[in-house]
């Protein structure tokens, strides 16, 4: 059933008896033309765009080891933006931003894409200049950007700590089209859209091995049996190295824990997204009223999906340094996700050395905003065998070749990206 105000109204009058499951609970068939592994944002969007843009590929299945959306797609702090600096990145993220702008009408699901803007604060001349470089790059790529000085910023965000700051706020790089989206709804919307276009979404189906014949991937072993496939795309984020190892590959990736935090619900207080430039802290407020905030990754390899106290304290220190009004707001929940941190901080969308096996990984802490483009471009690659033009830089070989996309310039140490 199409979702609309009208359908909600008529269903309300019928006691909501007509709603159907958002997606079928499919059971695996013995074989598919394409298998996408991973029911996170990347995998679901890939399945959706494969079915929508490349129906010629044939039968598609998406395999998720647990419940759909239980990975990072359901754990992130929901920021979407296209404020990147390097030419390898900016076209891709701006493409993603444009897809966000039409997404809800496209997949007929309200994912609460909210273009409430993002402010990246700067605290020194050097930081301002770096943001100017970045902002100009964004404009050259057709995105929007604005550089505010202290007085302009103070008019827009009067509640920041301007007068008693260790690192005085001097201004901000602003992207007005950036914002947030409801993470779970993005997963559900893509799942529903993919399902309606015939994709089998198979939950509780963990891929245990990649079947190979003559150096080609021909299927997967799963907790629900062997499933054969013509092409296999992996989009398993924090579990990328584990899955790649099953195909005999090592990746330029480490898995790290990133924590996120939400406060108790409050009446509207912060109507945008703010990133502190002198500490590890960023914040927005959800539509339910919770302050959603976070900071740096915990800094050590982890598969535990949880973090430790020092980072929590560090994040809250940053928060209080920047907006001392949140001191009496209470932290309600904290959780962690497994970040697939790549060696240059940028993602990989590429073929692998194993024929017919494709990889989508290395999203670090920024893959949510990428979800639409990640799926769009991965679907393109799987269907056409060649990269989409905005994702051409995301090759595996770029590391060995030295063609890195290192926005922060910290080199091959993932916990610094």
């Amino acid at each position, binding site marked *: 059933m199409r979702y609309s105000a009208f359908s909600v109204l008529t269903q309300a009058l019928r006691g909501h008896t007509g709603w159907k499951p958002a997606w079928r609970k499919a059971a695996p068939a013995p074989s598919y033309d394409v298998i996408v592994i991973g029911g996170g944002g990347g995998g679901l969007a890939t399945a959706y765009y494969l079915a929508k843009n490349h129906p010629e590929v044939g039968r598609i299945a998406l395999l998720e080891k647990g419940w759909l959306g239980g990975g990072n797609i359901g754990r992130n702090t929901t920021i979407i933006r296209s404020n990147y600096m390097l030419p390898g990145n900016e076209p891709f993220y701006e493409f993603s931003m444009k897809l966000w702008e039409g997404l809800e009408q496209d997949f007929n699901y309200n994912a609460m894409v909210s273009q409430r803007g993002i402010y990246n604060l700067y605290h020194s001349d050097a930081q301002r200049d770096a943001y100017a470089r970045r902002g100009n790059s964004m404009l050259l790529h057709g995105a929007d950007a604005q550089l505010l000085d202290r007085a302009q910023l103070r008019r827009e965000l009067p509640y920041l700590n301007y007068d008693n700051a260790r690192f005085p706020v001097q201004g901000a790089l602003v992207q007005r089209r950036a914002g947030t989206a409801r993470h779970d709804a993005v997963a559900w919307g893509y799942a529903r859209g993919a399902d309606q276009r015939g994709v089998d979404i198979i939950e509780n189906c963990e891929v245990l091995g990649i079947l190979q014949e003559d150096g080609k991937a021909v299927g997967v072993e799963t907790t629900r049996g062997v499933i054969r496939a013509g092409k296999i795309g992996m989009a398993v984020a924090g579990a990328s*190295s*584990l899955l790649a190892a099953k195909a005999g590959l090592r990746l330029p990736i480490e*898995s790290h824990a990133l924590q996120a935090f939400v406060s108790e619900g409050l009446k509207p207080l912060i109507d945008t997204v703010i990133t502190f430039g002198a500490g590890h802290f960023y914040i927005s407020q959800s539509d339910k009223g919770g302050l959603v905030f976070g900071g740096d990754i915990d800094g050590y390899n982890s598969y535990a999906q949880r973090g*430790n106290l020092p980072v929590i304290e560090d994040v809250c220190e940053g928060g209080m340094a920047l907006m001392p009004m949140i001191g009496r707001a209470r932290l309600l929940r904290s959780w962690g996700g497994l970040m697939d941190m790549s060696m240059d901080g940028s993602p990989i969308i590429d073929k692998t050395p194993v024929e017919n096996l494709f990889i989508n990984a290395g999203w670090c802490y920024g893959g949510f905003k990428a979800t639409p483009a990640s799926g769009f471009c991965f679907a393109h690659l799987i269907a056409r065998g060649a990269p989409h033009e905005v994702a051409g830089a995301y090759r595996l070989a770029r590391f060995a070749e030295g063609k890195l996309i290192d926005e922060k310039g910290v080199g091959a140490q993932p916990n610094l990206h």
Partner: protein
Amino acid sequence: MRITCPHCGNRGLEEFTYTQDAERTRPTDGGATPTPEWADYIYLRDNLKGPRKEYWYHSAGCHAWLIVERDVSTHEILSVRLP
């Protein structure tokens, strides 16, 4: 997480800095030749679950580099020694 530094004793996570795993061997100098061994060493990681050897630096302590064996699935510290 708490790490027992052989020099300083049992200390909190906030005093230490992790940089990389200690599972790989650094290639010996082979001249100004970017060999595949070097590329693998710099960029590729096993990144598997379970006990791993890692380099940690006692940055807010004695500045010793430590080889810490740690289960990355549970965060349990299994052993700590000097390189």
